[in-house]
């Protein structure tokens, strides 16, 4: 068993994931861990329908995905993990679902966040969990698509924090 992609993307399953990543990597099982979507039948259905039929998909809360992961027969399977936030990524990593490099594919702007890259906006909580992931030895590979240039998100997070710190 191996995790072939661990991605943070607040849009979860959308065009970039289906057209960009799933055509590029070989995935047998997709584990989508999100507490909101787990309880939203419409969003779940849209996401389940959007991915190719040959991929088995589990959409559940973060805690349940951790349980599913420990029970599934994942032998010889390529696994993709998808979460919406650095916090949810950390919850999985902390439970032992680990990949040395996590793809940060998109965290979109909303009020209270600051845009640090075209596709990444963060608040203090996001920064905190990026640091915690980094402390676990995880590299943060920022790029929307497999063909995009890899950006070390931690550098941008630190630069943002130093600018924000100097404003105080």
């Amino acid at each position, binding site marked *: 068993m191996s995790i072939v992609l661990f991605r943070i993307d607040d849009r979860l399953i*959308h065009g970039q994931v289906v057209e960009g990543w799933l055509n590029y990597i070989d995935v047998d099982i997709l584990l989508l861990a999100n507490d909101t979507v787990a309880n939203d039948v419409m969003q779940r259905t849209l996401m389940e329908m959007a991915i190719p039929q040959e991929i088995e998909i589990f959409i559940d809360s973060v805690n349940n995905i951790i349980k599913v992961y420990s029970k599934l027969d994942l032998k010889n399977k390529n696994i993709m993990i998808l979460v919406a936030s650095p916090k949810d990524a950390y919850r999985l990593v902390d439970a032992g679902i680990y990949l040395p490099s996590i793809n940060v594919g998109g965290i979109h702007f909303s009020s209270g966040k600051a845009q640090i890259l075209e596709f990444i906006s963060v608040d203090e909580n996001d920064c905190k969990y990026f640091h915690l992931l980094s402390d676990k030895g995880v590299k943060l590979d920022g790029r929307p698509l497999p063909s995009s240039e890899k950006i070390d998100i931690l550098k941008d997070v630190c630069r943002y924090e130093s600018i924000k710190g100097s404003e105080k």
Partner: protein
Amino acid sequence: MSIAILLICHRQMATYLKDTAVNLSGVQKNFETIGVLPIDGIESTMDKITLSLTKIDSHIKNILVFVDIFGGTPCNAAAKFFRGKTNITTDIITGVNLPMILIAIAIRGNAKNFGEFLGSVKEEAKKNIISLKDLNLL
């Protein structure tokens, strides 16, 4: 019955599709476009939908939403936005193409029934995907 059209696509696709449709069919009222940019998520796309609806005549209760691809952010945001809105009758059609926009423009003025109108639009969309090789023209 009046029907409004809302076209939501990634990037500039909606703007250019409408521009092309208008070039062929003439200036359109109650036809709004939204571009979903790399910085947009589902929430900001829903905000853009709210803004677009303010530009549509308030008496119009039937809205046909076209989106570029099933499962993309335009589709997911529109689904989330319109679900449970009881004051608007709507459908979201994915995989928008120029023929389906042109037919929607052409027949929306005389449509008597929103369901039949949708049926005609979907039929026209599929009918217009034609391989010239299959027709022995190549």
